[in-house]
């Protein structure tokens, strides 16, 4: 049962809320399947926030619950400080959203579809149709039928539909789907420009690279639950560090390391040119220097020693691999 007893429930406090999206214990079940499992999500205002997870992780379901397209079974939530679903109309007045693939009436033009949507919003929304089309690069094709649009154009029309609300919060579900590399770059620029204006963008995606390029903070979701959330830089700082070592006698080098105190902390596997090492989370430069000293003292020639910056993708795989571990 949903309750709406969040702080900041009143309209006056809503504008002062620090969070664009807050959920506490949000749960949605489809029979025995739990699509959203006790999600506690805090999205700061004015940020680009990635909601990252594999297919079937429950990303779209969470967005549908937030927007009132489907009911939650438990938990509380608020958008822009307005508890929903109690103040859903007030909250959604300032929210733009793309859910699933953006689909429109194919027999209407892009502009006519936007007129249809603007009519359901405040009167000022109608004046935003032209600028919205302009902004997403559809001004010249705005009077073409949507049936003639490519997938990328429909995605952009979806963003234009979001802009009709002059939104403070945009919830974009897989906005890069179906886009070619150029289209993805344009969409990324568009999202970043909206964030630069102070809007909050929640980007749901399974494309780790896009999330890493676009977002400040991220929540990782799997099987309906959030397993990590926070600023990407902080999260990656807590990830394991990889080290590529190009050296002579890799086998002996591995043995040397195993014979020291480093052996328990460093995992080393032979590679074509030397060793690939995985350092523990939080390992600093001193650990790298210690490895170098041990190998040089042992008579190993070091040709190259390079730390590899952990990407969101490798970190994501680390996290999800651990999740899959029965331990």
């Amino acid at each position, binding site marked *: 049962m949903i309750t709406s007893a969040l702080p900041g429930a009143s309209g006056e406090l809503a504008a002062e809320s*620090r969070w664009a999206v807050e959920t506490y214990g949000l749960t949605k079940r489809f029979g025995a399947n739990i699509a959203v499992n006790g999600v506690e999500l805090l999205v700061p205002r004015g940020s680009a926030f990635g909601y990252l997870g594999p297919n079937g992780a429950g990303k779209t379901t969470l967005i549908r619950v937030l927007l009132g397209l489907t009911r939650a079974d438990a938990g509380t939530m608020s958008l822009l400080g307005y508890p929903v679903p109690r103040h859903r109309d007030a909250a959604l007045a300032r929210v733009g959203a793309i859910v699933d693939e953006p689909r429109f009436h194919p027999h209407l033009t892009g502009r006519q579809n936007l007129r249809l949507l603007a009519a*359901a919003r405040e009167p000022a929304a109608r004046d935003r149709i032209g600028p919205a089309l302009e902004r997403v690069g559809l001004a010249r094709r705005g009077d073409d039928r949507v049936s003639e649009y490519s997938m990328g154009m429909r995605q952009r029309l979806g963003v234009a539909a979001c802009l009709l609300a002059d939104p403070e919060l945009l919830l974009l579900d897989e906005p890069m789907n179906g886009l070619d590399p150029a289209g993805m770059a344009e969409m990324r620029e568009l999202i970043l420009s909206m964030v630069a204006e102070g809007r909050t963008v929640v980007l749901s995606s399974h494309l780790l690279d896009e999330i890493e390029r676009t977002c400040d903070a991220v929540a990782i979701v799997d099987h309906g639950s959030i397993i990590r959330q926070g600023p990407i830089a902080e999260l990656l700082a807590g990830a394991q560090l990889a080290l590529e070592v190009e050296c002579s006698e890799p086998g002996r080098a591995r043995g040397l390391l195993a014979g020291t105190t480093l052996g328990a902390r460093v995992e080393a596997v032979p590679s074509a040119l030397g060793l690939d090492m995985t350092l523990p989370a939080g390992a600093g430069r001193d650990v790298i220097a210690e490895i170098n000293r041990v190998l040089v003292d042992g008579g190993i020639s070091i040709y190259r020693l390079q730390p590899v910056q952990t990407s969101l993708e490798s970190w994501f795989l680390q996290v999800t691999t651990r999740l899959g571990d029965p331990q």
Partner: protein
Amino acid sequence: MTTMPVSGVPAPARGSRPAPAGHSRDRRGSPVPAAGMIATKIMELRKRRGLMITLIVLDIGFPAVFYLIRLLGHAFAPRANPSAGSGQIFTFFAAGFLPTFGFIVAATVGCTAGSRDLTEGMFRHLVVTGRSRLALYLARIPAGLAIVASLVAIGYAIVCAVSVFAAPTFIDYNNVNIPPGLSRAEFGNWARDHAEPVVCSLPYSGQVPANLPCPLPWSKSAVTPSQPASAKLEALAVKIASQDYPGYTAIFRSPPDSLMIEAGLWIELEAIVTFTVGLGLASLMGQRTIPVILLFVFQIIVTPILSAVDIPTCRTCSARSSGWPWHAWNHPGCR
């Protein structure tokens, strides 16, 4: 379920954006649809060109072409082709054609208006505006009705206009010219004055005297001056006229205004009910095809069965009248 600790609260916002000045609380939670929603919904339906052209051809084009052919035929060969308008043709359209095609128009538009937002994926865009779902549904009703009622009304207006303005100015029956628009008494008087052609040419199911001078020379010509006739012949002519009067009115008279208004309202009512049922069914089922099929099955199979049910209070007229006004018009006793 494996859970992992949350690493920390996300970074603070870069800079919160103040709420735009134009964002005032509107009444989007209200179930009453805004005028703009209705207007754009009309546009959405109207722009379905294939559907609209089909329905216009069906409900307006067919009577228009039918009457055009009759008007041209009568204009070029008035003796061979009767006038385009007449009570009989009006009855054909008002009692049979227009209700049937109005039903098709209403069912199709209703099911389209009720389902296409869902099937074309537009409904969720509308819902996330925060507008009340009820308002989104209700906006479809006046929008669809504006189209259905207009199409039905235009088709019916054509029928009425032709029935009135192209009504016959004379009636030629077996070469007997009869003036149109006579009341029962006037028709009787006219028959008395034209006793011999009436007796010899108009249909009569009773006994006719054997010594009538038929065929008479004037029966092959147009209206002739009154001929001297016996009182017996005049009485018989009045009797024949009385018997033929319902047929005369049905065939020759242009429909009265009250009937046209009443019939038009019945046709519109049927279309409105059909549209509303179609809209509701399609909204519930989220598709167009099955509700359309259900409505047609109802109209073709169930409605005739229900119509055949004998309602005691209407028993007197049930054989001839189903409650439609033109039956009462043709059968004044049932009014």
